[in-house]
């Protein structure tokens, strides 16, 4: 494969599996992420988000499957991959006794390219004093420094592992600003994992829902909101029809009230439900990302 081919995806994962002993952390996962997109990865704790990101960074070795970043095989061409990817880990291993400028100097040595101007602009934006010692930095400052280190070698792909977890609202906003500046100015592809659906709405254009090591959803955020709908109906005898739409991702019956959430909603779906015996007062409800996420996880059904 030609790595200069710009139409190929930024990230291409095929049949990725990771076993920790007997435990299946990532289960035959395939995923393609377009260049220039910002991919928000969500999923409950233990879904495999961090394991997936660590395998992309070559920190964990997959049990099977393959991963390419910008055409480079993660396992066969680890050096090329490292030069072209920026990474903000979920914990920051920096020598507590080093100063900010020493940490930067140390990191700079590992890369062929280093954009001094970008680096100092980011330090300024984040009000990070280069003379300060790592041990003097707050959690927010540390994460911001980690972002400076991750972007200064001008990577084409940025991997952020729950970067905004535990940040106060102001630090979170400043970090988001830093990432958005890079997205705007450098057309980076960004993959970030998070528990905050607000972050996905703001930062991402594409969303992936990971559950039990499998990707339940991989869709443009807008399309997902437009095509996943909840339907509320009354059941004359409290029994849902035998035939539910194939695209049902979750359903619940409480007394005579029937709730179901469907993907790929269309008028045909609605007509199908309306035409069932004993189904009345059918109503379509728009869902926010949070309800939608819960329904996918509760339904645990693979749709893509």
């Amino acid at each position, binding site marked *: 494969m030609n790595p200069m081919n710009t139409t190929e995806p930024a990230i291409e994962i095929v049949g990725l599996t990771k076993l920790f002993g007997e435990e299946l952390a990532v289960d035959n996962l395939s995923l393609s992420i377009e260049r220039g997109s910002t991919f928000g990865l969500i999923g409950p704790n233990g879904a495999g988000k961090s394991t997936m990101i660590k395998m992309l960074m070559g920190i964990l070795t997959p049990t099977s499957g393959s991963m390419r970043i910008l055409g480079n095989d993660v396992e066969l061409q680890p050096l090329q991959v490292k030069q072209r990817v920026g990474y903000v880990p979920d914990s920051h291993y920096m020598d507590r006794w080093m100063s900010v400028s020493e940490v930067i100097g140390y990191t700079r040595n590992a890369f062929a390219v280093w954009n001094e101007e970008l680096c100092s602009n980011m330090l300024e934006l984040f009000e990070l004093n280069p003379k300060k010692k790592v041990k003097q930095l707050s959690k927010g400052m540390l994460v911001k420094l980690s972002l400076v280190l991750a972007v200064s070698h001008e990577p084409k792909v940025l991997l952020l592992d729950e970067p905004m977890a535990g940040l106060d609202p102001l630090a979170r906003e400043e970090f988001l600003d830093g990432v*958005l500046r890079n997205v*705007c100015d450098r057309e980076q592809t960004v993959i970030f994992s998070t528990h905050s659906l607000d972050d996905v709405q703001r930062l991402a*254009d594409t969303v992936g829902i990971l559950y039990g090591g499998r990707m339940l959803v991989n869709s443009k955020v807008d399309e997902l909101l437009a095509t996943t709908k909840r339907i509320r109906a009354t059941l004359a005898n409290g029994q849902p029809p035998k035939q539910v739409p194939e695209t049902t991702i979750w359903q619940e019956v409480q007394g005579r009230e029937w709730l179901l959430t469907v993907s790929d909603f269309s008028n045909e779906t609605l007509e199908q439900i309306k035409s069932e015996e004993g189904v009345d007062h059918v109503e379509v409800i*728009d869902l926010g990302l949070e309800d939608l996420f819960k329904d996918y996880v509760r339904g645990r059904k693979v749709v893509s």
Partner: protein
Amino acid sequence: MKINPRSHIPIYLQIAEGIREAVAAGVYLIDEPLPSLRALALEIQVNPNTVQRAYDELAREGLIYSKRGRGLFVAEQGEESAQSVAQQTIAEQAVQNAFQEGIRAGRAAGMTLKQLRSLFSASLDESTKQETKA
């Protein structure tokens, strides 16, 4: 412009609505430039691709036009059409707020949604009767 990430309304539609309101209110006049993708994305803290989508939507409606390499501008008919759309959505919002108030009152009185629905259709029937009489 306020963005609500919890809403079921996609962010790009919220942005498009925000720009429409701003144009209708005369914040941006005809042939004046709109904020760049970068400026707006950073201001409201939203992905620039999402802002792009909002601008595409407004260009499709004829509210804005682009000059190559110089950015986006308010179209001549922009102000007018933005005003009518904005007025319509404001009117719709007012009606919805009134409905919400009615629903709250009903729920507080222990009514079920079904009862509220039949009350609402009874009111609609009543209005239809009156309008046909007049």
